[in-house]
């Protein structure tokens, strides 16, 4: 291996070097606890601060102040004494707090007294007809290419969906001279009314000013179609056009790039496979871990911080990372607590950071039709299982996502349900007249990312198993 952990056991292992992970690891390391931070990307920053230390987009006004604020956290981490391993993909975590990860073509296990999962969020799937066509990507994908490589859309580009990220991306693309033909906004107009009770706290939050100014910046330059109720991507072997319905009218626009977005949801795979209890969050329409005030979960010694514990954005992630880290310091090095901000201070920071969140959650609640597809629309991209396939299986007795595996391979591909799990749960819930909580989710297991057989074979030998041959 070209890079390897310095120790076999650590006081703290933090997984994910986004805002929450950077903040948490810095706190525990500064408190004198041996801390290992593992992240699968080439550099720190997670999604929101992706490539913050290496982006070619150096002109400060292009990516915005929120992006560049990540540098301070990266520098804080660097000064803290934490050990950080990049390009380290964690593929196993269990109740014994053994962490299995792959780095430099080889795998290793380390043990931790405490683990903080900070693996953040991923895009909510937007399963429209044709969404698997080459040329259909997520808004996050375009942002990643922009931040990491300075690549901007240059052809016939359509943005579709809803949420703050869509506006931010549009603004960044335009600032960098990229092309956007139009933005198709799928926000349900009725949500404005239901969001009204939360409007005051939203207006008092930093989101309001930033958000409104972004929207103004973009609307001045790009055609925005609101109230889109249907979306489809079409083309022969690759995206060629986008079809949509808005205000009852059907339209078609030529496109070679369609960027989809309807919010982000917790990336639950590592936590669920480690045995962390989750519950369905009806407001955020996703599975969230059941956490205590310190991010502690149903698995002793395992805490979750950041968007992985519930979507809150970068500032909230920093606060929750520090809260989880404080919990760890309280358990392992209580004498160092005095040097940390108090619980109340951190809670107040979290409150400030989540002000306005409720308004966004309600306003940008995705419509059922964009969460639950029908007919030939692909639900499971990896195994090419359609909505109709799943309905047929329900009709002959599949009661949930795991029972579905007796009939279909939905969820059994490499993405392990990351792009289909929510859809399958909601589709089955709707069809069977049950709640998502009752339907449940895929039972997830390690490896949460695929591992080469040769890498597994090269793991250091342990004691041999019982000599009696056991045949299966």
């Amino acid at each position: 291996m070209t890079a390897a952990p310095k120790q076999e056991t650590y006081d703290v292992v933090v997984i994910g070097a986004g805002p929450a992970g950077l903040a948490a690891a810095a706190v525990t390391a500064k408190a004198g606890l041996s801390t290992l931070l593992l992240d699968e990307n080439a550099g720190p920053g997670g999604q929101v601060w992706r490539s913050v230390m290496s982006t070619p987009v150096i002109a400060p006004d292009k990516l915005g102040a929120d992006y560049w604020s990540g540098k301070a956290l990266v520098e804080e981490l660097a000064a803290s004494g934490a050990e950080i391993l990049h390009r380290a993909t964690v593929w196993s975590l269990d109740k014994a707090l053994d962490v299995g990860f792959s780095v430099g073509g080889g795998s290793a296990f380390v043990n931790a007294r405490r683990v903080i999962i900070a693996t953040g969020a991923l895009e909510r799937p937007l399963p429209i007809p044709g969404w698997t066509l080459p040329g259909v990507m997520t808004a996050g994908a375009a942002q990643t290419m922009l931040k990491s490589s300075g690549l901007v859309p240059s052809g016939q580009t359509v943005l579709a969906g809803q949420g703050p990220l869509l506006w931010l991306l549009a603004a960044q693309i335009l600032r960098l001279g990229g092309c956007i033909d139009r933005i198709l906004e799928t926000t349900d107009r009725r949500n404005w009314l239901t969001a009204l009770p939360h409007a005051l706290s939203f207006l008092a939050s930093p989101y309001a000013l930033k958000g409104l100014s972004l929207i103004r910046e973009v609307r001045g330059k790009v055609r925005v179609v609101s109230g889109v109720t249907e979306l489809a991507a079409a083309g022969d072997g690759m995206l060629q056009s986008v079809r949509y319905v808005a205000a009852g009218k059907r339209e078609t626009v030529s496109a070679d790039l369609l960027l989809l977005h309807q919010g982000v949801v917790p990336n639950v795979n590592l936590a669920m496979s480690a045995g962390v209890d989750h519950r369905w969050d009806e407001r955020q329409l996703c599975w969230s871990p059941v956490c205590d005030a310190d991010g502690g979960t149903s698995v002793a010694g395992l805490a979750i911080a950041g968007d992985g514990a519930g979507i809150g954005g970068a500032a909230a992630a920093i606060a929750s990372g520090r809260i989880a880290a404080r919990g760890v310091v309280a358990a392992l090095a209580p004498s160092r607590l005095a040097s940390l901000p108090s619980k109340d201070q951190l809670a107040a920071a979290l409150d400030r950071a989540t002000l306005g969140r409720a308004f966004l959650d309600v306003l940008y609640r995705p419509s059922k039709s964009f969460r639950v597809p029908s007919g030939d629309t692909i639900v499971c991209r990896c195994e090419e299982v359609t909505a109709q396939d799943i309905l047929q299986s329900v009709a002959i007795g599949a009661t949930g996502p795991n029972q579905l595996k007796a009939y279909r391979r939905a969820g059994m591909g490499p993405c392990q349900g990351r792009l289909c799990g929510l859809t399958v749960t909601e589709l089955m819930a709707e069809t069977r007249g049950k709640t998502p909580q009752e339907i449940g989710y895929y039972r997830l297991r390690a490896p949460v990312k695929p591992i080469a057989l040769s890498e597994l074979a090269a793991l250091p030998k342990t004691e041999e198993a019982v000599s009696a041959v056991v045949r299966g």
Partner: protein
Amino acid sequence: MMFKRLQRDDRRRVRITVAGIDVEAREGDTVAAALVASGLDVRRKTAVSGAPRLPYCMMGVCFDCLVTIDGIGNRQGCLVPVAEGMQIEIQQGKREIGR
């Protein structure tokens, strides 16, 4: 072309080979980004039905960017930074093993 590069990009140029064709990338690009930016047809074929795919999420969760890098297959191209002389092959259907 779906994407274009910034007018000013100070990063070192890196040369990789894609299905035998030389492609110029930049240090810090991921393989997936370099492929999408190359202008070549880099669509892979799924192992299930041979349907064409390109990267979807660029953050390591969709697995549509699976690519063979220096002879090792099923690599997530969006998680691997380009390196000088890297050989990329596009995966068509069930990945070949034993090579």
